[in-house]
């Protein structure tokens, strides 16, 4: 099944935050997200042993590597989920590695979008409210947020499914709702950890296409964790993590 090309996102979609400028992924564009010397340990396990990463505006970066190599930990540090033990992370030049718990939660809500493997939609809410919720959390009035949500769902090929609850959607459809939820706030960066890990090959490719194309069209950068070559091929750049270090670019 092929997905209709997602049209550009609704112009007002980014109203809750400053609309992100669409910058072509040029090699030396000023980095939107830049990490230096990231170290993270869990007890005696060193998950990250000094990682440098740069992410340009509009760029999509595949983080690859074997299981347990530190991919998720890297994503969590970049996304403000875990504070690194050492190193710096700058988002648009602002240091975010030392923020408090509360500040990091706010940062994730306002500046980032997330697509996880499975189960991030609230089961009681219809698709449109799942998407609208992210916008309402930033203060958008309900009616306006619902309006935006419907536009996003339509743009992602889900017109007519707005009232369905997550349990009434296929895995691929649920992931597209998750993409809409991630993008409705006009994020600077979208983080996706194995977003197609629970889908079959064809559906996974569909979701990847929608994810990369819509994210790029929305002017957001993408950090995607995967161990799947096919999935990574949708991204404009890739890095390989092994034993907590970046070994190839």
């Amino acid at each position, binding site marked *: 099944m092929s997905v209709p090309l997602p049209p550009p996102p609704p112009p007002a979609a980014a109203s809750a935050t400053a609309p992100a400028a669409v910058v072509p992924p040029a090699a030396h564009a000023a980095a939107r997200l830049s990490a230096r010397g990231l170290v993270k340990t869990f007890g005696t396990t060193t998950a990250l042993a000094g990682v440098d990463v740069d992410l340009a505006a509009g760029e999509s970066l595949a983080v690859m590597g074997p299981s347990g190599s530190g991919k998720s930990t890297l994503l969590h540090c970049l996304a403000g989920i875990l504070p690194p033990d050492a190193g710096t992370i700058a988002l648009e030049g602002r240091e975010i590695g030392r923020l408090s718990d509360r500040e990091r939660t*706010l940062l994730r809500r306002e500046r980032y979008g997330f697509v996880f493997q499975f189960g991030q*939609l609230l089961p009681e809410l219809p698709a449109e409210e799942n998407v609208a919720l992210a916008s309402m959390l930033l203060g958008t009035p309900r009616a306006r947020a619902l309006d935006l949500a419907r536009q996003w769902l339509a743009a992602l090929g889900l017109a007519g499914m707005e009232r369905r609850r997550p349990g009434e959607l296929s895995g691929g459809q649920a992931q597209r709702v998750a993409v809409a939820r991630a993008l409705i706030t006009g994020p600077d960066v979208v983080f996706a950890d194995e977003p197609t890990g629970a889908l079959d090959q064809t559906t996974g490719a569909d979701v990847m296409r929608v994810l990369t194309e819509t994210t790029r069209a929305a002017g957001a950068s993408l950090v995607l964790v995967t161990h799947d070559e096919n999935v990574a091929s949708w991204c404009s750049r890739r890095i390989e993590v092994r034993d907590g270090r970046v070994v190839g670019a």
Partner: protein
Amino acid sequence: MRTVLALAGGPLRAARASGGAGARLTPGALAVIAFAVTTAFALSVVGGLRGFEGRAADPTSDVMADLAPTYVTLAWIAVVLLIVPLVSLGAGAARLGVARRDARLSTLRLLGVTGPQTVALTALETAQQGLVGAAIGLAGYGALLPVWTRIPFMGQPFTAGEIWVGVPVLAATLVVVPLVAAVSATVSLRRVVVTPLGVARRTTPPALRWVRVLGVVGAVGAFTVVAKVQLGFEGAVVTVILLGLLGLVLGTINLLGPWTISLLARVMVRRATTPARLLAGRRLLDDPKAAWRVVAGLGLAGFVAGIVSVLPGLAAATGDGDTADRLLAQDLVTGGILTLAIAFAVAAASAGIAQAASVLDRRQEYALQHLAGVPVELFDEVRRRVVVAPLALVAGTSAAVALVVLLPLFGMALVTAPQGLLLLAGCLLGGGLLVVAATETSRPLMRAVLRETDVRPG
């Protein structure tokens, strides 16, 4: 593996580490407490019933011979009132055990444990919790005996011997409670095993039928008619009919509860302007029966409170009657308040374990929402709204229904003795606060769940 191990031990350890009295209320401990509370109060109620039956069979005074049969009936009413909350508390405890086990289900699968083995293990673990809870409950029953023997009935407190249920009953309790816990857990877990995606695959539930209203209207109507007619009659037959109808009213309240909550939820959803309100409304609408289970105890207690509130008036009205009438009136108030207090305690315990189970059931959902930037305060607010909205509705409505039912019986006594209404308001407020406080015990558990970052499906 780390995921599930962390979910099994992590939140509990983290909850303990975060300190505070509430922090030590782990799900396992909560289940044990719930079984203990259920056991202690169930035994006390059975003991009370025995005491009244003993006095009826073997009265030691004329007054007692006069009153005892009525008291047996009244004691049965108290039993009826307390059965629903006690049963739902026990069932809730078993469900909590399952929620916790569900969190570890994937570990067991990774270790190569099969579905039937998982069910057996869970049944066994819940039975153990039931056994520990029942044992503590026995001790609790023993500890409560001196309290019960201080409360006068028919002008004379029970002796411990009168309300002692006997060793056979105590022994049976140690078998029955674990058994019921295990069966209940097995039933709940089968669902989890059959549909491993459980919560996430949930679809729109069918709406509750409005037909339920008819049942309640019918029961209340019949009760009112018979109550009116009774004014011209005399005799035990009418009393029995009235008591039967009272039970019917209670039963229909239990039917009407979920339906009313779904109506309330619809309004909440329609009017919601914030994410917390929207989510609270949707959650209530999704499973009004679960919300009802939590507040049912208080709903029924509210009904009792409605009855109790008229009793001081009744006592005043019959103040110049004979000794037996005065004693009966006083004891009605005592018994009503006692029933109410037990119902409140049970409702609070129910609310506490229901919240803990709900947090565990939704741990992945909560954790992922939090990773995406949803603040913990939102979940706190949703929890409060999900509990308080139906609480206010249910306690208020059932108290109002009770007043309507009793008005034809006592009429002006309500107005001439307003202290009854004040008592009612005080009871409802106190009970409500107790339930809210009990739900807040899940705060540390919630925070522990949110600290999970690795939340891939099993």
